[in-house]
């Protein structure tokens, strides 16, 4: 009996120890996944655009969802909900309004290995840099996109299909990134896309903060036209200067934009009244080779210069202002833009 009792206690002790290990593992797993709580982020803003004397008021909500599913999967989505209000033409009183609700992307990411991620669903077309990096309203320096945005982004800026992307090489001195995609044709209202393929490669020198990349896109329906693009980003180390430039060429038009911004953080730091200011400058040119009403570019050769002044308020609020002068054979015009954007970021549920 004493031996049995001893064995029982030993067995009980082993069971409890095993239980402790299991609970410990669960607790450790809980700790590990505690950083992977799904989040909701995005921006809410109000913009005004006065183009050629006509003002449009645009309240916008752009929420982002990111939800990890286990250690290798991630669901991501960004939506845009906006209303635009403009005074009625012809001396009539009141406003006309247009509503828009759409998904910019809704994708499932599979982290296949340290250098490759497989993406399926609706995703932002990887051409140039503006569409993927600068189009969120809480990131872009100007209210509107560059004039050449329509080149290579396949009409809507989104593609529906599959994409392979990742970092092929990443060292202290150089990083080589890539993205290749195939998109099916879709006429669904929320997942509108053209049948297309393309990709982008870029070389980034982290210590120089210098990036050079090339993009290619081919529409596989209709006229089967090609698009090529180049981009250059430079952000000198220890300097608040940022310089970005893109060139894109399509069958009927081509163009480029160059943008520089300089946060005045040398004047008392980024949180001082002056250090929160960020002057921005953008120069754009569009060359029209032949008429094309579908590419979204101006119908004639156009030069445009944008002078902007952004102010970064506390609590993730930013004010954007800019004046643009657009010169074209179809008519010169002034464009005034203002906006205020609040960026939010929080977990989907309460917890530790």
């Amino acid at each position, binding site marked *: 009996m004493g031996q049995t009792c001893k064995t029982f206690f030993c067995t009980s002790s082993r069971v409890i120890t095993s239980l402790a290990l299991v609970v410990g593992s669960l*607790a450790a797993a809980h700790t590990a996944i505690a950083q*992977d*709580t799904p*989040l909701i982020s995005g921006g809410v803003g109000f913009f005004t655009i006065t183009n050629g004397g006509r003002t449009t008021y645009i309240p916008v909500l752009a929420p982002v969802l990111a939800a990890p599913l286990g250690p290798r999967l*991630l669901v991501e989505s960004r939506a845009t909900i906006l209303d635009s209000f403009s005074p009625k033409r012809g001396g009539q009183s009141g406003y006309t309004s247009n509503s828009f609700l759409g998904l910019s992307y809704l994708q499932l990411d599979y982290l296949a290995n340290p250098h490759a991620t497989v993406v399926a669903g609706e995703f932002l077309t990887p051409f140039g840099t503006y569409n993927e990096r600068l189009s969120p309203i809480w990131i872009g320096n100007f209210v509107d996109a560059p004039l050449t945005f329509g080149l290579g982004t396949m009409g809507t800026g989104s593609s529906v299909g599959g994409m392979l992307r990742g*970092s092929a090489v990443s060292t202290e001195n150089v990083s080589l*990134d890539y993205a290749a995609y195939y998109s099916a044709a879709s006429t669904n209202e929320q997942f509108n896309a053209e049948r297309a393929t393309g990709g982008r490669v870029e070389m980034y020198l982290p210590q120089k903060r210098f990036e050079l990349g090339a993009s290619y896109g081919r529409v596989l329906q209709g006229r089967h036209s090609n698009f090529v693009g180049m981009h250059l980003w430079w952000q000198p180390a220890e300097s608040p200067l940022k310089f970005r430039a893109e060139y894109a060429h399509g069958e009927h038009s081509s163009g480029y934009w160059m943008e520089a911004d300089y946060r005045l953080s040398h004047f008392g730091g980024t949180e001082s009244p002056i250090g929160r200011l960020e002057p921005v400058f953008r120069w754009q040119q569009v060359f029209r080779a032949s008429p094309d009403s579908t590419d979204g570019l101006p119908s004639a050769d156009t030069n445009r210069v944008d002078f902007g002044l952004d102010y970064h308020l506390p*609590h993730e609020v930013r004010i954007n202002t800019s004046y643009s002068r657009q010169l074209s054979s179809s008519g010169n015009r002034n464009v005034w833009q203002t906006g205020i954007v609040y960026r939010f970021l929080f977990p989907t549920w309460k*917890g530790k």
Partner: protein
Amino acid sequence: MMKHWTLLTLGVVYLATLPLISQDSNSSAKPPVKPRVTVSANRNESPDGNGERKFQQNCSRCHQAPEGFPPRISGTIVRHMRVRASLSAQDERDILRFLNP
């Protein structure tokens, strides 16, 4: 001897479940100060310079760092940015360690 092992085992179980218990008590007690990751405040706490350097070299190129966020979404943020910015797995780990030293 058995009592000693039993107590030790119970102690291990208690320690292992402490995070879960503390989470429940936190959610009901509403602590006055919630933990938040503040990127600027953590810069000097990084165990090595890799995470901070990679954060500066990659994330700050496009956008301002958030003023702060709860630690429990830091992994989601970095994984989201791994896909968006084509970061390598090593870069993802280094930046996550920088955000949660």
